[in-house]
């Protein structure tokens, strides 16, 4: 995992090394200060030598200023390193996701990918910044301060050797016990948020069924769990402070006692005693800080794992090594096609499908929810690969095409379609970046969208809000169809794309298709019989297999399902 992530450091390797380098220099300066200070006290203040005070003081001031400069530099480089690393990581992930197949996207779900690209990256950036700076600073400080302490007086420094294990072991046990409880608490926060979320979404349901008290009880249960556990975890954590004080005070008392003895036997000076007090602070504080940093870095491990998962995910669709770059025509053939979304699914979603569609035909597909209508058509632009059998477009196996070539030739309007924030023009241009305004108007007329676009005050420059929230469902569907048409596809697939369009407009769209793009193969999935009634061929899907196939009049005679649907929709109806 660490190898995987460290690949994203790239051009920031240098600053990533400079940050700890300058931190080390800063620490060395800081660690020198108490020792030099001891000279100042012994040779300057104690002897009453003003010259010595000036001279040694000057050296000290230089040391402090150097330390300041080094500190600032390390902070600067750490910032550059961590933000650069995060940017690279974000980029690597985003690029990787762009290469994902539909199967990959479904595996992770959009919202989870978004979290990984946002929150998790931020967590990792903070962790990285800590690693290159504070995580280096603490152990270096600990080691150098110890060395200096031994240098000043090796007997007295033994005090630290007894204090460090006590504090270290104590902190270790606190963290070890508190950490799992904290993890538990985080999970509970998730459930708490879930309760709130569900209540917000379903407030009308809660109120209609008068379940306010019920929901309150649910919330308070989780809330109580959080209280119990976080109290437990934090109480454990609170041992840290007194433990630290205990170690610190212990050191001060021991240093005072033994120090006094050493001074009396002339093995130590007062200044040196003072420096030992300073080293006590430096050593114990850095140990404490290190434990905190350690916990914070380990907490980001989950984020690191989630990011690695994305980076390690191989796209399930691979481009052929010798791809075909030309789609001859819009004919489609399914030959004994089996398909399931995952290897573990026992029952395939599509079961031995064979059918052939002539270029330029209009095909209607109907069937109930779960009859795998969408699954069937998604195989044509190779959004998924078949589990068994072959799908051919223009006589060539879809797996042999260059994916982009294939998808440019096969334009699909998805059932769950999205518009993006930007003008109507921008959105339509997704189909063809270089399309002229005239081209755009042409496809919008085909999709019966021109009329309503014209009525908007800003016309084609009307700004579409994120998700297309400022146009109606029917308008959105027509814009999506126009966008797909702009690709000038050889095959056009509409996956239930006119459900919110009124029947009259729906039929106008189909008529326009028949007149304006007769050579394009049109595959239409619909709920309404009227949308597919005049197709060259209507396919009825039922539980993943073709129930029957034929023209409207043929099916009226042969298919019970079709007749039943027809009469339920046309009940008393004259159209």
């Amino acid at each position, binding site marked *: 995992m660490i190898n995987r992530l460290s690949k994203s450091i790239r051009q920031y390797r240098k600053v990533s090394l400079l940050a700890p380098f300058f931190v080390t220099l800063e620490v060395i300066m800081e660690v020198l200060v108490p020792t030099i200070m001891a000279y100042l006290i012994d040779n300057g203040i104690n002897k009453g030598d003003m010259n010595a005070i000036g001279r040694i003081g000057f050296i000290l001031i230089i040391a402090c200023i150097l330390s300041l400069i080094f500190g600032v530099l390390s902070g600067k480089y750490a910032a550059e390193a961590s933000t650069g690393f995060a940017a690279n990581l974000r980029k690597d992930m985003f690029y990787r996701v762009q290469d994902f197949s539909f199967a990959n996207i479904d595996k992770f779900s959009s919202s989870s990918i978004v979290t990984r*690209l946002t*929150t998790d990256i931020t967590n990792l950036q903070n962790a990285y910044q800590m690693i290159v700076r504070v995580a280096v600073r603490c152990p270096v400080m600990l080691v150098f301060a110890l060395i200096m302490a031994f240098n000043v007086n090796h007997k007295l420094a033994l005090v630290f050797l007894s204090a460090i294990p006590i504090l270290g072991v104590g902190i270790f046990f606190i963290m070890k016990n508190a950490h799992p409880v904290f993890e538990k608490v985080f999970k509970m926060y998730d459930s708490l948020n879930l309760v709130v979320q569900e209540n917000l979404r379903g407030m009308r349901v809660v109120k209609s069924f008068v379940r306010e008290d019920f929901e309150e009880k649910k919330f308070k249960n989780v809330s109580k769990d959080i209280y119990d556990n976080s109290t437990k975890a934090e109480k454990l954590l609170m041992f840290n402070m007194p433990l630290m004080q205990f170690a610190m005070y212990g050191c001060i008392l021991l240093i005072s006692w033994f120090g006094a003895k050493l001074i009396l036997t002339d093995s130590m000076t007062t200044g040196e005693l003072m420096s030992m007090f300073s080293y006590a602070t430096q050593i114990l504080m850095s140990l404490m800080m290190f434990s905190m940093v350690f916990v914070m870095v380990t907490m980001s491990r989950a984020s690191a794992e989630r990011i690695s998962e994305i980076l390690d995910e191989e796209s399930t669709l691979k481009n052929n090594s010798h791809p075909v770059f030309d789609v001859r025509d819009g004919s489609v053939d399914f030959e004994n096609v089996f398909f399931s979304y995952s290897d573990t699914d026992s029952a395939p979603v599509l079961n031995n499908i064979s059918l052939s569609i002539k270029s330029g035909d209009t095909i209607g597909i109907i069937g109930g929810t779960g009859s795998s209508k969408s699954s069937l058509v998604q195989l044509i632009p190779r959004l998924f690969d078949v589990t068994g059998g072959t799908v051919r477009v223009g006589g060539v196996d879809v797996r042999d095409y260059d994916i982009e070539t294939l998808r440019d030739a096969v334009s699909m309007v998805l059932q769950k379609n999205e518009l993006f924030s930007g003008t109507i023009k921008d959105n339509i241009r997704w189909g063809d970046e270089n399309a002229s305004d005239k081209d755009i108007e042409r496809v919008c007329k085909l999709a019966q969208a021109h009329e309503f676009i014209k009525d908007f005050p800003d016309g084609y420059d009307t700004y579409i809000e994120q998700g297309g929230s400022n146009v109606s469902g029917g308008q959105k569907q027509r814009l999506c169809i126009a966008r797909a048409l702009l690709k000038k596809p050889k095959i056009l697939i509409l996956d239930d794309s006119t459900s919110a369009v009124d029947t009259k407009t729906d039929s106008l769209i189909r008529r326009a298709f028949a007149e304006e793009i007769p050579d394009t193969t049109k595959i239409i999935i619909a709920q309404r019989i009227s949308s597919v009634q005049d197709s060259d061929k209507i396919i009825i899907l039922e539980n993943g297999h073709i129930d029957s196939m034929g023209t409207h009049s043929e099916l009226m005679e042969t298919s019970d399902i079709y007749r039943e649907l027809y009469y339920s929709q046309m009940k008393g109806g004259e159209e």
Partner: protein
Amino acid sequence: MPGGRKFTPRTRKLSKRDADTVKRLMTYFAKYKFRFTLVLACIVISAVASVAGSLFIKVLIDQYISPMLLSPEPSFAPLMGAIARMAALYALGVLSTFAYSRLMVSIAQGILKTIRDDMFTHMQSLPVKYFDTHTFGDVMSRYTNDTDTLRQMISMAIPQMFSAVITVAAVFTAMVTTSIYLTAFVLVMLIIMLRTTKFIGSKSGQYFIKQQVALGKINGYIEEMINGQKVVKVFCHEDKAKEEFDALNDNMRDVSSKANKFANILMPVMSNIGNLQYVIIAMAGGALAIGGVGSLTLGAIASFLQLSRSFTMPISQISNQFNSIVMALAGAERIFNLMDEQPETDNGHVTLTNAQYNSKNEIVPSDSYTGMWAWKCPDTDGGFRYVKVEGDVRFDDVDFGYEENKTILHDITLFAKPGQKVAFVGATGAGKTTITNLINRFYDIADGKIQYDGININIIKKDDLRRSLGIVLQDTSLFTGTVMENIRYGRLDATDEDVYAAAKLTNADGFIRMLPEGYNTVISGSGSELSQGQKQLITIARAAVANPPVMILDEATSSIDTRTESIVQKGMDALMHGRTVFVIAHRLSTVQNSDVIMVLDHGHIIERGNHEQLIAEKGVYYRLYTGAFEME
């Protein structure tokens, strides 16, 4: 998750509003008055112990080591005693720290729990209007971000503040008694330090705001692109997306790098200014001692050096925390805003009760579920009158608007006789859903009268009114839990058999039994394991188990395909049988068999009648039916 970790950058000064927020926060401490006083006492002891430690160095050097150096036969016994006394004081300090830390945990967590619970309880009491006018993410962030910052403030910032203030006071006293001159010097250094902090802080603040803007932009882009990833793929738009992303990402890196730089250099600058101060005090102290000014001893200088460290540290701590406190107060204010929202008012006094006929064929209340309901109306003489719930709903000249002066519904008059099916059709925004919002009093009418079994709905207790109305919405809201629990949501005391029966009635039983765990299959919040149609079937079963006399179906079948709908329809017909039903549907096939169809346009009922009548009228309904009008 929408509204997850979004955060609006703000830098602002403390204001009067914040003072009010603090005051209000303090009321939560009132419950812990005793414990909190104890905490304060412990903090004082702990601070005193630490200051005494610094002063001890002076005692050690001046009173023990120096005299002992001069004495030919030094005795260690007095030193031993002094260290023992100090050890005792230290022990007390450690114990106090331990005590106040632990006490503070219970207090902080307790307060947070109270605030959270209060907030949720209050939220449940708010009218639907609140949720219609506030975005999901906005409310959600009060439970996540705002409570989070508040947690940090209460459990960390507040005790640290107190401890800092007390330590600073104690240290200052000790410093002044040790040397006035050096104290003055420390104060000068302190001012320099604070100035520097402020400068760096404001610089970094500026860049952090920019960083938040950049972060918002890039996260927004990511969210939009990833959610539309399938469209991106279908249109081979990947390269364009990468290009746009790169621009945003580079900008984000640059701004964020600057912001972090300033934040990062704050710590080394502060600590090294602290070191400088340390050095200069030693030099100045040495000079004063040599010059004989202020009778400074070596021990005093040594003590003072230690003291100066404990003086500046808490102050820079406070200044570091200042920003987080301001943020926490803003969060607290938002939480309190929610708690101050006016809850739903309810002046109703007519209640709903289970009922049955007694031997004399009179309606009498029953303690258990009978499937029959009655309104319990208080009489003027203190007794009660029972009216059978039949489901007779009348609107008399009802006007309504979501905002004042903006009437949405005009002069709506309609009546639904018990057992009738009343349908509303019309374009989006015509007011269909609004009418149903009025029946269950999610909103209150501006003018006119709505009667339910002859009782004005204003005098019916809201909870009871709603209990008598079943509702199935287009937006299927299920809750995390098993299918069984979700259906039982309709009536909590329903037995398993009741649930099965309701599911069978609504044709949901079949598919539920096909699920991996049948009725015990756990549905997660989003219910992504189920198709939209299946989820809708569960919500219909949920309404069925409640068995209310009146049903409202708001686009209940619009997300079900027509083939499945015909299956659901049978269940729905069974569910509707013998009840008054209000139906809103955009698929006209679902409303054709209604007793009355109301065509709404801009808040007016423009046509009414049954299907045949309206077709014969050749009006708007006719045109809708023949597809000349668009419904969405």
